[in-house]
């Protein structure tokens, strides 16, 4: 996804072509409006010439009035058409942009976990924001460019028909506008990218200095940071002045080239007028036509550069769209058989595969090695093991977030791969280690699985999770907005919302993936009661490292390098397994780091 395929490719062009094709009615309208606009616009200098020659020079009041009114009439047509072509041009591009963004979003929603593990949110955001913006600006230009190209050709034809010699002379310098504009656009682009980069570095220095102000002040490092900033600001200055110099050498040239054409017309055409081969009106019309060519030629120059960027963007968008969701329903997807949540792992092997074309140092290492595990209906099993033992992977395989490489996983006798994804995931509730809450009300967060759930059900789930009393005390109750911009919940409260969310879904199998690890150890006992209530009578897999949480389970399974090394109740394992004791002792030791019952709120670094 990154810089692997920066060059525009066929896929990018195809994406653009399809986007335009989807809007073909609008394109036709836009191009038609453009045609009329061109016709009207091009008629103006000819009409002016007729007015000058037949009206002014031949002193004919009637003809003068007629031709002037004709100009006005053409002006109205041109005005209406310029509005329409603008409207259609942007209409096309914004609609295409919206459609593409819809597609992109829907596709991202369907892509498998492994894709999202490797994709950076910032990169994906850039696809939906800057890349689509590039595509949109380019698409806008398509009908406008067609209009401009027509104008240029029409004017060139008219000039050559009127006076080939003068036309050749007048137009000689004009193609250079195109060349200059093109060179300008492609030269300036890398430098402005560099400037953006330098600006980002200045921003970085400012940010770290402000955020780390205590360190800067504590060491009296103001001068060091000041020096760093000055170096970076100087680089910005240098790039920006370079950009200015580039503009300075191009922009006046863009004015000079048409002026050369005008001078040529005045000189050669003037002498033709003197010798009676050209009328004064034609001379003025020539000049007006030349002025008319400036804007379209400038645009034709930039559109090539823009097209290149748009295709590069479209290619990047296509890369995302072309990634196939790896985990989808089978053609003959089955319904979940009735049952009480009996879960079996049969010789399950698994390894995280590296992303396509990418490399991952620890990828490909087997995580689960022919694992057998049987969880009886209603049983609660705790999975325990060191980092990398595969315990979280077990949790992630049950709802088929990843595909097993060998063996199979069954729920009430049905292989998870044969089940309809939607049903499978409705049957398996999972509470993740990092509790993600949506920027929405507490109610909507809890009823995420079933937005139509009545208030009583929401409250019931909240009660089971030990959350209701807290929520009821909030001024806005269940309507309190949480999430990034909303009310700040503590780790334990967030965890309980996530728990209530899973309870409301009423899953056949509940998975608690290290769900208590982000909770302040002193608060853990509060949520422990909620957990115990939820687990009662429900098939549950608990992944935990705190002994008190582990003790809630009916059975404890100790994993090491993807295999089960010990099994039994908590007390049994304490008595028999040296490994188990060591593991628990180690996590206790780690926790001892934060033993005082409070976190100092006025920490020296924010």
């Amino acid at each position, binding site marked *: 996804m990154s810089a692997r395929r920066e060059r525009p490719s066929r896929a990018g062009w195809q994406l653009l072509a399809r986007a335009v094709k989807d809007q073909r009615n609008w394109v036709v309208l836009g191009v038609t409006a453009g045609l009329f606009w061109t016709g009207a616009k091009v008629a103006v200098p000819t009409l002016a010439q007729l007015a000058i020659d037949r009206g002014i020079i031949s002193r004919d009041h009637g003809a003068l009035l007629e031709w*002037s009114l004709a100009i*006005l009439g053409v002006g109205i047509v041109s005005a209406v058409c310029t509005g329409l072509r603008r409207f259609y041009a942007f209409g096309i591009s914004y609609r295409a942009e919206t459609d593409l963004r819809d597609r992109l979003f829907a596709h991202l929603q369907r892509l498998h976990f492994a894709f999202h593990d490797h994709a950076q949110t910032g990169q994906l955001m850039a696809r939906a924001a800057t890349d689509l913006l590039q595509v949109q600006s380019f698409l*806008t230009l398509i009908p406008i460019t067609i209009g401009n190209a027509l104008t240029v050709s029409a004017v060139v034809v008219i000039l050559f028909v009127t006076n080939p010699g003068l036309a050749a002379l007048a137009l000689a310098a004009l193609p250079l506008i195109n060349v200059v504009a093109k060179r300008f656009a492609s030269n300036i682009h890398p430098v402005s990218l560099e400037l953006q980069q330098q600006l980002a570095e200045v921003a970085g220095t400012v940010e770290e200095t402000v955020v780390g102000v205590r360190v800067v002040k504590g060491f009296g490092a103001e001068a060091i940071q*000041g020096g760093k900033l000055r170096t970076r600001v100087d680089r910005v200055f240098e790039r920006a002045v370079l950009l200015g110099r580039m503009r300075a050498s191009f922009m006046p040239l863009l004015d000079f080239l048409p002026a050369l054409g005008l001078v040529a017309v005045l000189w050669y055409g003037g002498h033709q007028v003197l010798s009676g081969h050209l009328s004064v009106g034609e001379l003025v019309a020539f000049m007006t036509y030349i002025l008319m060519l400036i804007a379209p030629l400038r645009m034709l120059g930039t559109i090539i550069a823009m097209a290149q960027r748009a295709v590069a963007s479209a290619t990047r968008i296509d890369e995302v769209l072309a990634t196939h969701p790896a985990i989808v329903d089978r053609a003959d997807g089955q319904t979940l058989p009735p049952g009480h949540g009996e879960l079996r792992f049969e010789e399950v092997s698994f390894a995280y595969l590296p992303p396509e074309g990418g490399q991952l140092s620890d990828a490909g290492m087997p995580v689960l090695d022919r694992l057998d595990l049987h969880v009886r209906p209603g049983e609660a099993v705790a999975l325990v093991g060191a980092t990398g033992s595969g315990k979280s992977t077990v949790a992630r395989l049950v709802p088929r977030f990843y595909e097993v490489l060998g063996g199979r996983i069954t729920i009430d006798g049905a292989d998870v791969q044969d089940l309809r994804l939607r049903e499978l995931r409705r049957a398996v509730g999972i509470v993740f280690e990092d509790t993600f809450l949506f920027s929405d009300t507490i109610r909507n967060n809890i009823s995420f699985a079933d937005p139509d759930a009545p208030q009583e059900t929401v409250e019931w789930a909240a009660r089971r999770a030990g959350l209701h009393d807290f929520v009821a005390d909030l001024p806005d109750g269940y309507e309190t907005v949480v999430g990034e911009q909303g009310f700040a919940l503590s780790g334990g409260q967030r965890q309980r919302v996530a728990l209530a969310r899973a309870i409301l879904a009423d899953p056949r199998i509940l998975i608690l993936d290290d769900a208590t690890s982000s909770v302040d150890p002193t608060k853990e006992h509060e949520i422990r009661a909620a957990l115990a209530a939820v687990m009662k009578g429900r098939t549950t897999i608990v992944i935990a490292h705190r002994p008190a949480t582990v003790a809630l389970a009916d059975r404890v399974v100790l994993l090491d390098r993807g295999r089960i090394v010990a099994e039994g109740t908590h007390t049994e394992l304490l008595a028999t397994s040296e490994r188990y004791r060591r593991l628990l002792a180690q996590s206790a030791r780690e926790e001892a780091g934060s033993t005082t019952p409070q976190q100092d709120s006025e920490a020296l670094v924010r």
Partner: protein
Amino acid sequence: MMGWGSGAVRDEEKLSSSQARQVVRRSLRMLRPYRRQVTVALVVLVVYTLAMLAGPLMVRLGIDRGLQAHDALVLNLAVVGYLVAAAVAVVLGRTQITLITRVGESFLRDLRVRVFDHLQAMGMTFFDSQPAGRLVSRMTSDVDALQTLVQQGLVMFIQNALLFVATIVVLVVLSPVLAAVCLAAMPVVVVASIRFRRDSNVAYLTVRDRVGQTLSTLQESLSGIRVVQAFAREESQNEVFVSHNRAQLDANLRAVRISARYFPVIELAGIGTMAIIVGVGGVLVHDSFITVGTVAAFALYLTNLFEPIQQLSQLFNTVQQAGAALKKLFDLLDVPSDLTERPGAVDLPETGELLVEDVGFAYDGRAQVLADVNLAVRPGERLALVGPTGAGKSTLAKLMARMYDPGEGRIGYGGVDLRDATFSSLRHRIVVVPQEGFLFDGTIFENVAIGRRGADEEAVRRALRLIGVEERFQALPQGLATAVRERGSRLSAGERQLVSLARAALADPAVLVLDEATSSLDPGTEADVERAMAGLMQGRTVVVIAHRLSTAERADRVAVVDHGELVEEGTHDQLLADRGRYAALFASWAGEQQRRHPSDLAEDAVVSS
């Protein structure tokens, strides 16, 4: 092109005319060092404008005195005149853009440095009261708004404004009557432009908001993708997104409709004026009021009239934004620093006693945090500050390093009030090592070198050696030149802390104020950090904010802070014997410790491992 409403300005950001005047005055003052360049730029601008105006006049001369009078010499003269004017315009145009950009960018460079230096000179109270994001945005989005203006609009804005006015003057001089008729459409254009600017500003603001909503919906569903898939809620998430996306499309189309109504007005005014010039001009020619050449010149000047208005109306928002940004920046520069070095400040002595006398403190406008604290720390002594959350121990530690000034009482070192000390000696003698290792962008070497200005590699290595981690960092692929990446994401939490400790070792202070980390590290690094701390504390006066009472146990003396007061003081053993606050804290800590351990068996395992 219409980008996503990036040029829109909110009402509250617009400046009143007196504010605008003030901003202009201050900007001019900041431009003083560049006044010669500004003067040259202005002269060049005027000559450039004249050259741009000369072209149509030469056409007029050529037609009237050359073509109509059948004088080839005058025609040639006019041609040469036009060519010269065009050549002058190229050369001057170039000079002008270079000059204006250079002056503008110099202004921005000065502004950036001044604002940054000012920020760094502010005291901690200021940083407490301002969200970091807002301060950063002063230096990023606000200065960038100015940069956009300098790069893309400033030259055009000045040129267009001048060209527009000058063209009108020339038209009036050429033919007052025709000029008057010509400008008949102008009020319509001006009114349409003002309305367009207003309406499109509103429309763009809506676009900006809707774009924000669409993108934040996307961002949120990407961050929460696992939850969405786990609950099989992809479809409903899609519906939400599609509705936001549709709202964005509607807002965009509304903005398009506004411009699709405006541009025809400009187009019609342009061509209509052409019709007027030809029609009315023709009649005037018939009556010999004006010449054919004048009509031609008017026709050629037409582009100078309507294009600038159109561009000015589009640039207006950029200028308004820049004005608002400048005001915010000047306002920031006006905030005085609350923590400054006194005139005639003296250096702190090499060693001495750290003396806290009758100190009271309250954070800006909030409740009292410390009251009546008296404490003396002897050279070489290790003092542990202990107490519950919010007791004021961190505040006390910060006051000892003059991160803030005490509200009442005084803090002295070696007999000198910290407020009378030079900053350089203060930061050299007393150093605070924060809880979490905060790293800056750059290499490990650069991060350690922050500790002392001008430190060379040998000094940095010595510091690393002192805390026993030189080999650990040397073993990295690029050694000390290894870049730590964003906020040190390449290093583990423990390694970040080690770098932070090395920094303090390099600073080599007489007094070390340590805030013990509350979060846990992996056991291996934990031991390294503890070793590093021991190395660092060797031979220094140490004040440590102890979160683990085992640390307090090892200190020479313990001071218990509660509710902003010093409630107990003495050695660990004394305080335990006194059975006061400390003894209670220690008992509950030890109990907690016990409870946390799974069982006696596990406890044994800890001991044996």
